[in-house]
């Protein structure tokens, strides 16, 4: 066994639920400077958590995520113009109460971060960003919206954010709120009373590939713990369990959702990452657009593919990807056993010549090359439901 090195705990940031996670026996890790639960061994651990979300319901503390609000200055339209300038999706198409996946780009067309943009009002937006990039993002947003008549507010520490995820998530949360959850479509949100807390943001969003909600409650410790406990109580009949970052990662990987620093980074552009459908070139100017035009004309040097191991071995982040002849051609960005299929899956960047389904590749694991093949993605797609309760 390697003995892992850990940063001094005092230097790490904590969410309001930190003490609760420790009482629950969570295994804590340093995630981008945050002391976060990776799994909860007493309630079953990573695989049990993953299966709870796929099969029923689980709850995650995602308060480490950052929240940036951009709203009108003196004149209407300034916030929308600012959001349009700094993100690649078309925020003008969002209705009030609707959200979408987007990204903030460098002038090179590579990623500052990916982001969920919520339209709170005609000229009022909430951008939910990654934990590890919070300071970088907020500075970048402030720097790049200076010429716009919008007000940028960092609300990251104002909220405890809980993700209630899984096919039974709506039933669990409905017990705790007066909002009609059945009326909220995927990637829409509303405000309602949750656990007695008025005007709580309730979004039908998540990072698991499953149905689910993210709620934003005031960040006091007592309030946060009370809401968490009420969610657990409401979910008891469905076998709800607390879920950590470990399951969050395997769930998002099966669903082929990008993770900053892995599938997307300041080295990788939108086309390579395969996020074309969230990038609206026709909406007009935005940071990174000119470089993306040029990149499109130049063609792809590499593309993101899903692979599945054929030989016995687990592909991991940063392992080399070789062609069948054994020449290094690419790199794994995320790799793990899939708790749903039991197979060893990965995402990797390879030249387009090796991206066709069925292409045999070799992943270099501790000096040996193990056979894998390109497979369709996402690795997991949730079954379609008829009702949207």
């Amino acid at each position, binding site marked *: *066994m*390697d*003995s892992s090195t850990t940063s001094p705990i005092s230097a790490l940031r904590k969410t309001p639920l930190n003490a609760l996670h420790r009482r629950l026996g969570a295994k804590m890790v340093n995630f981008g400077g945050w002391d976060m639960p990776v799994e909860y061994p007493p309630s079953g651990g*990573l*695989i049990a958590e993953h299966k709870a979300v796929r099969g029923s319901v689980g709850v995650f503390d995602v308060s480490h995520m950052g929240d940036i609000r951009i709203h009108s200055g003196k004149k209407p339209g300034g916030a929308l113009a600012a959001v349009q300038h700094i993100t690649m999706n078309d925020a003008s198409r969002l209705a009030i109460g609707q959200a979408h996946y987007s990204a903030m780009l460098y002038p090179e067309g590579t990623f500052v971060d990916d982001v969920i943009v919520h339209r709170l009002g005609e000229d009022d937006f909430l951008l939910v960003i990654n934990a590890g990039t919070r300071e970088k993002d907020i500075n970048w947003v402030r720097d790049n919206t200076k010429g716009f008549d919008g007000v940028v507010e960092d609300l990251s520490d104002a909220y405890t954010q809980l993700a209630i995820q899984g096919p039974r998530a709506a039933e669990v949360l409905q017990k705790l709120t007066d909002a009609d959850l059945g009326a909220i479509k995927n990637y829409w949100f509303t405000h309602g009373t949750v656990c007695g807390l008025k005007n709580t943001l309730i979004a039908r969003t998540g990072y698991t590939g499953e149905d689910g909600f993210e709620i934003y409650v005031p960040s006091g410790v007592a309030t946060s713990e009370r809401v968490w406990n009420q969610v657990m109580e409401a979910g008891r009949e469905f076998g709800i369990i607390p879920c950590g970052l470990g399951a969050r990662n395997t769930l998002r990987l099966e669903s082929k959702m990008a993770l900053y620093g892995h599938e997307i980074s300041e080295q990788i552009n939108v086309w390579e990452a395969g996020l074309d459908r969230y990038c609206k070139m026709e909406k007009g100017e935005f940071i990174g657009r000119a470089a993306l035009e040029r990149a499109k004309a130049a063609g792809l040097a590499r593309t993101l593919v899903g692979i599945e191991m054929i030989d016995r071995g687990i592909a991991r982040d940063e392992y080399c990807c070789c062609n069948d002849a054994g020449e290094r051609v690419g790199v794994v960005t995320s790799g793990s*056993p899939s708790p749903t299929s039991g197979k060893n899956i990965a995402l990797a960047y390879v030249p387009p010549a090796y991206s066709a389904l069925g292409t045999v590749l070799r992943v270099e694991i501790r000096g040996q090359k193990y056979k894998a093949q390109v497979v369709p993605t996402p690795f997991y797609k949730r079954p379609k439901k008829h009702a949207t309760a």
Partner: protein
Amino acid sequence: MGYPKDRRYTKEHEWIELKGDLATIGITDHAQHELGDVVFVELPKLGAKIEAGKSFGTVESVKAVSEIYAPANGEVIEANGELQNKPETINSDPHGAAWLIKVRLTNAKGISDLMDAAAYEAYIAEKGKETSA
């Protein structure tokens, strides 16, 4: 969990049980707990030489890869083939059914320097304090 008193322990969380010049080697309960759900084990072939302090195999959980280090010098006479199909045994019975390899020691030098159960328990208690202070 009480650590068996009939064996010795390394700082890298392996255990070794001696019977004459034959030794059985595994990883500790603490190690499996740190790893989480074990999904994959890679062990040396019969006849392979292992060298004290050097890696002889890997144990992988969903999240992590961990090298396993040899507590002593020797030659592998048996590897636990059951673990290939049931790696989760490492989580459920790390000190028993989930032994990893049996070796014939080439010299027993250094084994008496390894920790006994009481020393190992004190060692992991101390490590726990470092990370949860």
